[in-house]
């Protein structure tokens, strides 16, 4: 007699970041931004419709449904409505870093009441507390869903987690919605250094004994497997791309956890794409190429990367040297014409340095002086990121970055050679 099988199906989504300012930072104009915000909401709606069609047992929203600071009442209402339309399909929301539970967040019923917005429907459960808590699935009493509201990792929080996990009473089936970072499931840029030291480890998660862990912190997909290569948890990453770091296909998971009568668990997740657009990033070194060759190469590269003309958002980094007088302006314009939105980072330079200048010439002396300065600058500020966080760069020559010195080098050479300067990345 085959062992009886209990199964649980679900839709797992993360990091929708509805109304996020990330779209602004991408450089989208207002028109595209509004259109994109609607598309993101549309992606959620399509995912929920699909979940209802597939008759899943639950919907898990694991972190960052929206951005508390920028989400509008209209969006909140649309989300509340969308979840209500699922009827008795339970929705479990674990607030993340951006939509953390607080007094002025839409997870607070008094906030909704104060604004006259509709309250969450009864099928929606929000893990409003930072403490780990569990609720039973309304139709599958054996299935416990554990969750919490986000708290920034710290030493204290790490201790709390230890306590939570130690105190937790194991159920027949336990599923954890985890919105805090787990080692290996996020990129360095997604969490600043002090907090990064106190994140949960994969080992801790494996040891915690959950039957499935839905990770929600990172923006990219991640899967946690045990030694036997069984899937213990998965992270969908962001459902839609809203940053140039969120490239490629963005998905939600339709998961299925099966447990046989002997306690054997088999979990699978099926990634499904709901976003109509993708973000595609590419970097090209156009040294030695003519403008037309470079253009063909770039378009081919984007095609290879799956970028769809007129649909997708592309980010192009142009590197290398070009012949004097052959600035890549036309390439940039062409790329912008071909895609829904194209952001081009032009790091190319004219190939002055390839020329041989007489040792005593003004150019040679200038290049020499500038290269010395660049070396010094790069010593002082080894990474570009140090001044790329939006804060004003400190005044004075002592705080120059290598890139600025390099700019100065080329500006000076252009002034000497051409009596004019091509200012880079200036609108």
């Amino acid at each position: 007699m085959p062992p009886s099988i209990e199964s649980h199906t679900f839709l797992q989504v993360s990091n929708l970041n509805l109304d996020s300012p990330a779209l602004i930072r991408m450089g989208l104009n207002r028109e595209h931004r509004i259109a994109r915000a609607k598309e993101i909401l549309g992606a959620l709606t399509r995912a929920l419709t699909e979940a209802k069609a597939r008759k899943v047992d639950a919907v898990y929203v694991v972190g960052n449904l929206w951005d508390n600071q920028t989400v509008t009442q209209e969006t909140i209402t649309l989300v509340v409505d969308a979840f209500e339309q699922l009827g008795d399909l339970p929705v479990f929301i674990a607030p993340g870093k951006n939509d953390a539970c607080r007094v002025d967040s839409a997870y607070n019923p008094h906030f909704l009441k104060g604004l006259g917005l509709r309250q969450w429907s009864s099928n929606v459960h929000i893990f409003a507390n930072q403490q780990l808590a569990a609720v039973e699935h309304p139709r599958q009493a054996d299935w416990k869903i554990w969750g919490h509201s986000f708290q920034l990792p710290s030493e204290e929080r790490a201790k709390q987690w230890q306590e939570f996990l130690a105190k937790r009473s194991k159920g027949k089936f336990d599923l954890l919605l985890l919105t805090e970072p787990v080692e290996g499931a996020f990129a360095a840029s997604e969490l600043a250094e002090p907090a990064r030291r106190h994140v949960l480890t994969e080992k801790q998660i494996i040891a915690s004994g959950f039957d499935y862990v839905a990770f929600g912190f990172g923006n990219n997909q991640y899967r946690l497997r045990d030694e036997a290569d069984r899937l213990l948890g998965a992270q969908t990453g962001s459902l839609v791309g809203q940053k140039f770091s969120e490239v490629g296909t963005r998905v939600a998971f339709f998961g299925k956890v099966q447990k046989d009568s002997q306690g054997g668990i088999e979990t699978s997740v099926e990634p499904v794409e709901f976003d109509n657009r993708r973000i595609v990033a590419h970097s090209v070194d156009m040294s030695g190429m003519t403008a037309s060759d470079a253009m063909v190469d770039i378009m081919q590269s984007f095609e290879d990367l799956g970028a769809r003309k007129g649909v997708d958002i592309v980010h192009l980094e142009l590197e290398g040297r070009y012949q004097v007088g052959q600035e890549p302006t036309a390439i940039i314009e062409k790329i912008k014409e071909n895609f829904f939105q194209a952001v081009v980072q032009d790091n190319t330079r004219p190939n002055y340095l390839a020329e041989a200048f007489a040792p005593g010439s003004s150019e040679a002396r200038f290049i020499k002086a500038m290269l010395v300065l660049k070396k010094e600058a790069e010593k002082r500020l080894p990474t570009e990121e140090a001044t790329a966080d939006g804060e004003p760069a400190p005044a004075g020559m002592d705080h120059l970055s290598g890139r600025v010195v390099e700019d100065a080098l080329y500006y000076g050479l252009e002034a000497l050679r051409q009596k004019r300067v091509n200012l880079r990345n200036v609108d």
Partner: protein
Amino acid sequence: MLIERLEIVSFGAAVNEQVEFGTNAINLVEEHSEQERLLIPAVMLAILYGFDPDQAGIPESLGDVSKFRPKDGKGTQFLASLDCLQTGRHLRISRDFENNKATVIERGSSEKDVTDEFLGNGDKSVGEVLTKLSHEEFWQNCFLLNSDKRNGTSAAAAIAEALRKIVDPTSTMYGKALAVGVLDSYLNQFPYKSIQIKIDFLIHELEQQKLELKRKTESLDRERKGMIGLIEGVAAVTPKLDGKVGQSDANEYFQLCFRAAEIDGQVLHLRAQHVRLRNILKDLARIGSMEGFSIECQQPVEELWKRRSSHVDDYRNLEQELAPKIEEYEAYEREVTQRWERLQSFTPEQAQALRVGADNFLILAKELGESRQQRERQEKGSEGGQIDLSKYEEIKRTLASLEPRDANDAKSYSALIMGFRKQLASSEKGKSKAESIISEIEEQRRAKAEGGNVLKMFKPSLLRQPELEAAQADLERHVARIDDIHGRIKNLESRIQSLAQRAGIGDGSTLLEYINQYSAASPQVQEMERLDESIVQRQAACDRLKSDFEQYFRQAGRADQEINAENIASLSSDVINCLRDFRSLNSTFGTLKLSKQQLEFLAAEIRGIDEALQELFTRAKLNEPANVEASYTEFYGKIARYHHWQSLQEEIAKAEHKYGFNPGTEQIHQVLAELELERTQAWSRIHELVDHFPEIAQAKPPAANELEKLRGKPVEAELQEARKERDNLQRQMKSFFNDYDEQYTSLLAMMEAVDHQLTTSRNCKLALELAREVLEQLLMDDLAKVSPKTTVPKDAKGEALPLILDAAGWSQEELEFSLALRFVVAVIAPSRQTILLSNNRKVRLERFSPILNMSSIPVHFAWRKALESESVLPKAAT
């Protein structure tokens, strides 16, 4: 030696002026004219070395004391002083140019005259002692007033040569300077959104924008934090309302819905009424005010109109009947009238008088003519009869001179004489006859007597004897008679003679002749006189008649015609014909006239009625009361309008009574606005309630009678208070978050854009400035290399001498000037106190501020200004 101050009491055009110099700065003196610019080196040189017209190597103009002597004469001292720092000692060198005497004071806490120390035996000038340089050497090393000074070995000449090299476009320095200029232009004209702007200004603006956006964002963040209190307030008030407020909210909701529906009904009704009553008002406006319209005139008007209509009918029938005749009559009358224009005024009496007068005139004229003809004939006849009318006139005059009795006597005498002469002639004739008879008888007798016997049978002496005897008797009688008559004539002639004497002619025969002649001519003359008299009388009668005719001619409009028989006859005839024609007209159309009179009677009747009607129409205030028929129509139209007006007024009065105002007026907008406001408020509250309590909208509405009861039933005070608090909190939150949703993301987007632009601009600025700075440094190195070693001469104490440059002398291209300035600023100024004399603001030293900062050479603007009163100069000099 460092120059600290120059004080001029009087020198050339300068009077009581001072110039302060920075000892560790590059000094810029701006003087527009060359004369003023050269005043500074001239006075410095004059103080240190005095005036020496024979001094070689110095411009002649600076050696001529007369050129700098004060123009206002004796009143002002020809004096100036120079404060300088020499090996740590503060000296003031003053010179009285009148006596060429120099004084040196050591300035400090106590002033000390050290003239002796610097002048010694007095055979050297203070400048020479101080610097150990001759007048010429000092000039050549310290003053550069001509950039073209190519030859020579002095420091100033070397500097001039260096400057010339620097501005040579083929030099590497020039290329670098050009590149610096290019970078500089990008910093000053940075491309930003299709305009060009100074990058520092742009960055400043962007920073300000960013700060403002940040301030707004932070303000929204703060306000959002402030909302937490409201949210907590909502949380706090919610339990107070739980379980009780639901029904209360629902009641309010339904009451508001009911009221809103009521308002909708009212608004629709009022709008319909507005349309209806506005049309009524338009009708009323079109009708105009009928207030005071005399409706009582209707009956008399009607009665009069009936009479009038009857008369008018009669009149028209009669008129129609008579029309052809009248037409004929009128045509004939027109013809007669036209024919006898201006003669119609003549009466039959006048015509009669005219006719008689004309006949008389014609007779008189005829008679006059005849008399005149007769007169003419008489006159001609007298000529044929040899009547000497002139003589006749004399006879007439002579006879007239006699007394009438004498004249008559003379005439009688003459007549008697004539009679007697006739008698005499008769008697002569009788005598002749008797004599002839006698002679004849005698003849006969003799014939008988001589003849035959037969004849003798009759006795011849008896032949015819009786006759003979009768003849003889007659002869005797006639002879007697003749004698008697002669006697008588003689008597009469004597009497005539006496009368002739009385008449003054002295000759009776003449008088007699006159009388005889007069007598012989008298019938003719008398006839002529009679004719003349007749002519005169008739002419007078004619004239009288003419004067009588004048008025008729005037009356007939023929005053211009001559009044003669023909015209009088014509006028008379015309008048008679005129009267005849008019008589004929009257007699022919007599019946017609009667009919016309009847017509006129009818017309008079109609006029009478019309007058009465006009009065009534005037009372009814019609437009044209005189136009009776139009007025009658208008009157009845007005009556119709009056009744319409009355009914519309009643409608308006009813509406005003019903609504308290006239909904057809503009007042409805206010009422509708109030209702709209109430409805908006109601719906706003309904939406608020539905928004906040969606379940209300799904609740079952109470029955109509219950709703009516609820409307009159006040809500519990405590509950009402809690609801108010809740509503207030919700409103505040809603208001804030609506604004927040609208603004926050936009602010972030703007901030992102500004931040991006700011970062780009800053990086560009840094890069451009860095490139410029490095190029400038390279340029400075090049400049230092071309600096001649002799450019920093020292004085006796080993101190660098000041350099005074006439920057106006280099006024070439700005770039070249900049290079020259760079050279001066970077190479010369750090080692020598430099004074730049400029003729304009082309010398923009602030442009070189980075270099100046690096070289620690500040800029000092050394203006010539009025000498302050507390100056120690006069005291020291004197």
